């Protein structure tokens, strides 16, 4: 498989009145054509900043790329001009945002909002764009697309609006689709429908997908691989199986442990104590150490590098160092891991 996207040592900061907020502090990951990567992590871990940086949509002038490369089909997006990025956005890379209620222009007909990208990138005339937009509405499962084309966003429910946002993103058959918590703002049944839809469409169009979420529950359903982010860094990356059955980073244990499952009602959830670090002054050493009961002395001094677990699986924790004590995940997390394989077996 060939690489579609390679993000190398990406660092993004915001200049604020209080100082420099180091939102992304050296992120590395890659993505193959047609593959789905889930990025998970707590609120504030830099997921959205990473994705807006990929899109070239960092808020200016406060947001700056300090260093790093974003290689998309071998070309560095960081070096692209504003005009070049406009050609890529919506065409090669598209994005679905978190809040469908506010993601659509309230004073523009839904049809026009879908047609815009088609007219801009595919040189379509209005008639062709209209036809294609109607097809897209049908594709994302909106009944009576002809009628819906001429309606305004307020005439759609939340779930329907998110379908429209997806239709907009899909309009030009992007090679990469970034979905930043596309279902968080929706209620549970609608969430499942939208996820189903995204999976179906991704299969049909064979586009690669970056799926951002803080809900590990949906990850197993959607993704091929998972990147776990903490405090502006990827701390563990691997296939879904690697992350769910053989997690290595204590932070990943925490995420898995705090995830409710079907039979978790009686046992206590393994909550991660404390709160994420202040990105104005990121701690020295391993940023997760203050919240990590397995932290080693070296964690407070030196940042762990990415240790290789297998060809697909890497994690940044000193626990993987050969001299480190052998530490097993907490019992509740282990039981959880077995639970996953049981659920998997039943499916």
């Amino acid at each position, binding site marked *: 498989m060939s690489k579609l996207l390679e993000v190398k040592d990406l660092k993004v900061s915001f200049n604020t009145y209080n100082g420099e907020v180091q939102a992304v502090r050296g992120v590395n990951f890659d993505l193959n054509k047609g593959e789905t990567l889930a990025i998970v992590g707590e609120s504030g871990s830099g997921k959205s900043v990473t994705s807006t940086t990929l*899109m070239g*949509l960092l808020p200016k002038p406060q947001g700056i790329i300090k260093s790093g490369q974003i290689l998309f089909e071998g070309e560095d997006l960081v070096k692209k001009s*504003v005009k070049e*990025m*406009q*050609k*890529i*956005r*919506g*065409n090669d890379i*598209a*994005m679905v*945002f978190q*809040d469908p209620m*506010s*993601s*659509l*222009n*309230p*004073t*523009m007909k839904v049809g026009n*909002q879908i047609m*815009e*990208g088609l007219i*801009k*990138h595919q040189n379509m005339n209005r008639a062709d764009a209209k036809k294609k937009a109607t097809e897209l509405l049908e594709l994302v499962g909106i009944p009576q697309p002809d009628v819906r084309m001429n309606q*305004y966003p*307020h*005439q759609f429910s939340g779930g329907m609006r998110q379908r429209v*946002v997806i239709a*907009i*993103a899909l309009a030009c058959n992007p090679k990469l689709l970034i979905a930043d918590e596309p279902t968080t703002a929706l209620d549970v049944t609608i969430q499942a429908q939208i996820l189903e839809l995204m999976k179906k469409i991704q299969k049909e169009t064979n586009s690669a997908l970056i799926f951002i979420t803080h809900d590990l529950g949906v990850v197993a359903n959607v993704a091929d691989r998972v990147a776990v982010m903490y405090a502006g860094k990827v701390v563990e990356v691997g296939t879904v199986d690697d992350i769910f059955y053989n997690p290595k980073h204590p932070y990943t244990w925490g995420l898995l442990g705090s995830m409710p499952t079907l039979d978790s009602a009686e046992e206590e959830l393994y909550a991660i104590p404390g709160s994420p670090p202040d990105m104005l002054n990121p701690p020295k050493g391993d940023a997760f150490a203050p919240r990590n009961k397995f932290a080693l002395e070296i964690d407070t001094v030196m940042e762990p590098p990415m240790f290789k677990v297998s060809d697909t699986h890497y994690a940044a924790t000193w626990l993987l160092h050969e001299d480190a004590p052998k530490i097993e995940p907490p019992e509740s997390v282990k039981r959880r891991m077995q639970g996953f394989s049981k659920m998997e077996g039943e499916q």
Partner: protein
Amino acid sequence: MFRYILQRLFYMLITLFIIATVTFFMMKMLPGSPLSAEDKLSEEQKAIVLEKYGLNDPVPVQYLRYMGGLVKGDLGVSFAFDNTPVTKILMDRMGPSLQLGFQSLLIGSFIGIILGLIAAVFRNGAIDYTSTIIAVLGSSIPNFVFAGILQYVFAVRLEWFPVALWGGFEYSILPTIALMIFPMATAARFIRTEMVDVLNSNFILTARAKGISEVGVVFKHGLRNGLIPLITVIGPMAVSMMTGSMVIEQIFAIPGIGEQFVTSVTLNDYPTIMGTTLLFAFLFVVIILIIDLLYGLIDPRIRVSGGNS
């Protein structure tokens, strides 16, 4: 929609009726009479005049007589201006005032929108601060100050424009500029705040994510949403233009309604004062109606609920 407009027209009539009643009785409470300035008349002569205009009748009788005329579109005759019917006075005087009000509102809000837009797009830059200063000055300094300065500099000293009076278009330029400062400043401040909000909203991000150019983002997606709230302030602004124009018309000696209103008030010319007040009130409610309809035209969310009611 048609029913909605009919309903609104009905409310308009009631509003005007109430305004007419209140103004009538308030005016009767004013000290002095139309003749208090006329020292040369003897007591008997005054009595004859008062009798002739029906001012000796009990107030309720006068009121009923006035309202009766009003229904027929008769605003009575002026005490001061040679017994001319008030409707004719208003007709003659309306032209210059409407022209001034219209010109200044249109040009003022247009320039204001552009200023506010530029300030919002380049916010916190030099352009933004300049435009904010212009806006604050423009909305805090009374327009007659500008009028005086403009008149002195451009008419008296430079002699580019006529000093006063009303002839062709060139006579309207200085008063229009003086009048338009306020709507310009208001629109600029308003649009700036509104556009900063709009440009930070999620749907703008969606538009950018489509690869639309920044110009397209600002004008196609931003401006229309930023304009909607402005419509609400334009109504009161239009009215304040009408009343604000009284002073401006005095300064430039323009034979408009404002100038005539001020004269009528000093003369206690009841029918003309009444007529002018009613005209202002009428224009006010009409503008409000137009603005509500316009609102529905620009904002689809309101169009629907308006259509249903």
